[in-house]
């Protein structure tokens, strides 16, 4: 499963001069050295994950008396059950999922429509609108958090799970418009023109011609947005109060009390909380890379 996560890029072997060397009958020292250093770095990167896992299967006595990297003397799989309990996993994961399932497709649809108008209809003032929106994709969320709190309070949407979707949409849309605009700009005009002559409406052109062409970008944005929404903390912690409304990132707080932190169950919870994101990533990874590529090249 893990190896599949990483297939993102099937790259041409640009630096691969291994075959050339092999022909000359010399061992590929560069390749071996590279492999060893990459392997060591990868182990270093894996280490925190390993430590987390070890912590997630140890009871308190083991945590207090054995080194962090050692295997547990008794495997405390019960930590996972108590993580579900303490972190109220089904409620918080349900809340996060609910938000993501509504927010991500809706946001993409709204962003795609706007990007279409900006890139293909090209009306007066479009460039200024694009500029203002693009800048919005770059400004830190925290700048507006104070006033956003007041806005949500005035709307009676403070501490509302569905209410949170509105600012989430607003903060996701600019970047998506920015990326999709680049994509739509690349659609050949002839495609659109011939459809128009065949009598297609603007909406049909958007829905049946332009949008399908943007599938890789949409898939990439879907993954990025799902991950970002699932993991969002700053706005959620500002705008949600009641524990039954908490999302996954807020629930991590449940493991710390004034008496200390329950590290075993907490690490179990962290692992479980990443599962939906990994699933989405695995499902869309093929497109994700094409989209990341397009986004990167577009500039």
């Amino acid at each position, binding site marked *: 499963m893990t190896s599949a996560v990483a297939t993102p890029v099937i790259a041409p072997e640009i630096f691969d001069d291994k075959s050339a060397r092999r022909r000359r009958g010399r061992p590929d020292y560069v390749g071996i050295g590279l492999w060893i250093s990459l392997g060591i770095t990868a182990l270093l990167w894996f280490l925190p994950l390993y430590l987390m896992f070890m912590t997630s299967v140890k009871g308190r006595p083991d945590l207090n008396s054995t080194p962090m990297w050692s295997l547990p003397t008794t495997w405390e799989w019960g930590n996972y059950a108590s993580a579900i309990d303490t972190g109220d996993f089904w409620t918080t994961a349900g809340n996060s999922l609910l938000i993501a399932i509504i927010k991500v497709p809706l946001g993409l649809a709204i962003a795609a429509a706007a990007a279409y108008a900006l890139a293909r*209809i090209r009306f007066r003032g479009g460039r200024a609108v694009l500029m203002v929106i693009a800048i919005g994709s770059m400004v830190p969320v925290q700048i507006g958090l104070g*006033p956003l709190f007041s806005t949500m309070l005035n709307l009676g949407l403070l501490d509302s799970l569905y209410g949170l979707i509105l600012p989430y949409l607003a903060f996701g849309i600019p970047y998506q418009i920015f990326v999709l605009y680049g994509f739509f700009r690349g659609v050949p005009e002839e495609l659109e023109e011939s459809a128009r002559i065949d009598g297609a409406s603007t909406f049909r052109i958007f829905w049946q011609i332009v949008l399908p062409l943007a599938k890789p970008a949409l898939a990439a944005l879907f993954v990025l947005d799902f991950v970002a929404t699932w993991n969002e903390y700053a706005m959620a912690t500002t705008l949600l109060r009641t524990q039954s409304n908490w999302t996954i990132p807020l629930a991590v707080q449940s493991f710390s009390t004034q008496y200390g932190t329950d590290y075993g169950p907490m690490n179990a919870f962290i692992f479980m909380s990443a599962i939906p994101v990994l699933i989405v990533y695995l499902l869309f990874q093929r497109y994700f890379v094409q989209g990341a590529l397009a986004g990167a090249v577009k500039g």
Partner: protein
Amino acid sequence: MATVALVTEGRAKRRTPKHHRLTLALPYLIPAVVLYGWFLLYPMLDAVRLSFFEWSGFRIQEPVWVGFDNYVRLFTQDAVFWTAFGNSVVWVILSLILPTGIALILALGLNRKMVGRNLMRAVFYIPAVFASITVAAMWRWIYNPTLGFVNQFLEAVGLGAWTQSWLGDPQFALGSIFIANIWQAVGFSMVLFLAGLQTVPVELIEAAKLDGANAWQRFRAVTVPALRPTTIVVIILTIINSLKVFDLVVGMTGGGPAQSTQVLALWSYTQSFTNHQFGMGGAVATVLLIVTLALVIPYMAWSMKGEDR
């Protein structure tokens, strides 16, 4: 013949006056503009407005106009602000060097066909899918002074004298948080660089090989130019993410000890929501906004160049 007719007709269509096209565009544009304006643009501009008021944030109290007082206080009396400002600057600079450099090196290495390549890519990418707030919780445990990995490891290899209260010592806290940030941030930039490496024209590499260019020359002459657009995107995203850093600091130190890990985004938040000084919070937010725009607008100008409107 038919195509010619199609094209001319199409051209005519495109010459629809621009104000007419606006009515056509509005239905597509309105949902995005309303949401963006209401829940992002307005709060941000309102933060700037609030920076000229003194306000506790409580509804029963009216904001009081104080002009530039908040800024004067911020620049002359608020020592925490300068710490936060400095830390944010340091964070941006370090982020541009360390995680970005590591990501580039890893991408170049992992672009080569080798055993276990996919597994390695996975290992580097997985930290990026964890929520930053959970990464903070994980690493707080790793840095735990008595039971945490770092100190236990130092003891085990005989470097017991080096053990520290990593997050509790103002000297080490920010660096310790930054290491967790490197761990998490490398994967995403690496994927972007790997994607960018796909745009390196293979024919050019082959041609250079035939001309006898060595690996370094091929890298300099072909790979580096081809990677330029990707690099610019990675750099801009890194800057933006560095200015946004919040979750990691909140989760690991909350800005402490003694405000030593304070950053602009968190200080703005703390002033507003903890100290109930929405005016001061707004002033910090405004400074952060100006810093962000100063870094981002040149990029925007560059990226919009060549658009034909």
